[in-house]
C-alpha cells in the first residue's frame, strides 16, 4: 500500500514536470510548477506520517490537560510539517512573482504563448 502512495505522488510530480517542459503556454507552465510544488509537499507529508499499531497518528499538538510527554507516543512527525509550511510559503511567493512576470510578458507581447515570445536565441 505504501508503495502505491509514494509512486502515485511521483506520478503527480511527473504531471507537473511534463507541463513545465513540454507546454508552451505561460499559464500552463505556471500551473505545472505549482503541481510540482504540491507533489513535493505531499511527499514530505507522506514521509512524516506515522501510524501507531494500526491507529492513525495524531496531530503534533498537545491537547489541553495531557502530560507534556504524551506526544512522543501518539503524534506524527512534526519536522516535515514545519518544512512543508516553509515550502508552501516559498510556493506562494513564487506564484506571485510568476504571475507578475506573466502579466508583464503579456503586456509586451500580447500573448501567453512562448512560441511567439522568442526574442532570445537559446
Amino acid at each position, binding site marked *: 500500500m505504501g508503495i502505491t502512495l509514494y509512486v502515485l505522488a511521483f506520478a503527480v*510530480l511527473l504531471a*507537473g*514536470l511534463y507541463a*513545465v517542459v513540454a507546454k508552451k503556454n*505561460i499559464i500552463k*507552465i505556471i500551473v505545472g*510548477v505549482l503541481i*510540482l*510544488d504540491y*507533489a*513535493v509537499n505531499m*511527499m*514530505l507529508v507522506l*514521509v512524516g506520517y506515522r501510524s501507531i499499531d494500526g491507529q492513525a497518528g495524531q496531530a503534533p499538538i498537545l491537547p489541553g490537560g495531557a502530560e507534556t510527554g504524551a506526544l512522543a507516543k501518539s503524534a506524527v512527525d512534526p*519536522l*516535515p510539517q514545519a*518544512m512543508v509550511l*516553509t*515550502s508552501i510559503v*516559498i510556493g506562494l*511567493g*513564487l506564484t506571485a*512573482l*510568476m504571475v507578475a*512576470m*506573466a502579466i*508583464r*510578458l503579456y503586456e*509586451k*507581447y500580447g500573448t501567453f504563448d512562448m512560441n511567439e*515570445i*522568442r*526574442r*532570445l536565441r*537559446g
Partner: protein
Amino acid sequence: MEPLVPLLVAVPLGVAFAVVLLAHVRGLRRLTGLLAVAAVVANLAISLVLIGGPTINTFVGGWGDGRTLGIQMVCDGLAKLMLVTINLVAAVSIVYAGAYMRRFTKVWLFESLFLLMTGAMNGVVLAGDLFNMFVFLEVAAIASYALVGFGCEAEELEAAFKYLILGTVGSALILLGITILYSLTGNLNMAMVSQGLAVVGRTSPAVLLAAAMLLAGLSLKAAMVPFHAWLPDAHPSAPAPISAMLSGVLIKASGVYALARVVFSVLGPSPQYATVLMVLGAASMVIGVFLAIGQWDFKRLLAYHSISQMGYVVLALGAAAAVMSRSDPDRTVAGLCLFGGLFHLFNHAAFKSLLFLSSGCIEQQAGTRLLKEMGGLSRRMPITSFCCRIGALSIAGVPPFNGFFSKLIIIISLFLAGYPVLAGVAVLVALMTLLSFIKVQRYALEGEPTKTAGAVEAPALMCIALVVLAVVCVAGGLAAIPLRDHLFAPAGDALMNASGSLTAGVTP
C-alpha cells in the same frame, strides 16, 4: 569570533528591510545606497577577519549542547573561502552599481534585492543543515530572478521567466532529494545525515534516487551542461553588476559550492558521484567553450565562458572525489585537485566579474554590446580597456595572471589523478578560450573606432571597481602560494575531512 558568524546573514537582511523602510521616508531616501554599501563592506570585513580564526560551529538559538535540535551554522575553511569570494565581488559590484544603476528607476528596490541575495548566499555557505541550505538557496534564487528582469524590457522579462521556471524545477528536485534523505535518516543536519547514510549504505537504491535528485537540481543551479539552457539568456540580460554577481558568485555559491558540500560532506565521495561530477564538468567545459566561440554579443560570450570555466571547477572536484573514493586514497593528489578547483573558483569570481563589469562600462559608454560594432576602445576608454584586458588575459590562462596558475594546477592534478585524456581536453579548452578572447581584443579594444567614436571613459566609481578586481586578478597570480596556505588548503581540508569539520562541537 563566534558571535560574528550570524551577523553575516543578519546584517544584509536587516539592512535590506531597512532600505525599504527608508525609501518611503522623504529626506532619508538618499541614504539607502550608502547604507547598502556599508552593509556589504562590513560583511567583507567580517569574512576577512574570520579567515584567521578557527573553524566555528554554532547552533542557532543555542539548541546544540550535545543535540542537533537546532540549525547548525558551520564556518570551516571552505565556508571562509566562499564568504571572502562572495563578499568581495558583492562589495565591488555594489560600489559599481552606485554609478551604473542611475539609469534605472526605483533603485532602492535594486539595493534591497541585492542585499537579500548577498545575505542569502552567505546563509547558503554557512548552513550546516540541508533544509536551511535549501531555504537560503531559494531566497538567493528568487532575488536573482527579479534582478534579471530588473530592466523590465521584453527580452529581460523573457530571460527572467525562463530562469525562474528552470530554477524552480531545480529547487523542487533539491527539496525532493532532501525529503528522501530525511526519510532515510530522520535528520536534517548534514553531519547527522552523513552518519545515518553510512549505516543505511551510501549507494543503496533510495540514496541513489535522492542523490540523483540533488545532483540534477544543483546542476541546474550551477548551469552544468545539459542543464545550462537558462544561463546564456539570464546572465547577459541582467544589469551589469548583477551579471557580475550571478556569473561571479551565485552559480558558485548555490551551484558548485552546494554540489561540493552535498557530495563530499553528505553523500560521501563514492565512485558513482565522482563520475557524475566529472562527466558534468568535462561536458560543460567543452560544450561551453564551443558555444562561446561563435558569439558576437560580448555579454553572451562571457556567459558561455562561465559555463565552460565552471566545468573546470566541477571536473577538478569530481577528480578529487574519485581519488578520495579509491580504496587507498592519495590525499596529496586529492588535495591538489581540490586546490586547483577551488583556486579556479576564486579566480573565476574575480576575472569574470571584472569582465562583466567592464562590459557594462562599454555598454553604457559606447551604447553597444556587439563586438563588431566596437573597436578602438583602448584609446577612448583607457582604464576600462586596460582592466578588461587583464581580465581577458586571466581567463585565457596567460601567465602570470591568476587563471594560468589555477588551470595549470587543475591540468597537473588531473594527470596525477590518472586522467591524462581529460587533462589534454582541459589544455585544448584553455587554447580555445584564449582564441575566443583574442577575438575580443581584436574587435573591441584594437582597430579603428567605428560606431563608438563618441565613447568616453566611464565614471570614477565604476573605474575604481574595475581596478580593484584587476588588482585581485594580478595578485591572485603572484600570491598563489600564500593564498593556498591561508585560504585554499583549509578549504580543501574541510572537504576531505568533511565529517570532521562539520561535527566538531557536536557529540552525538
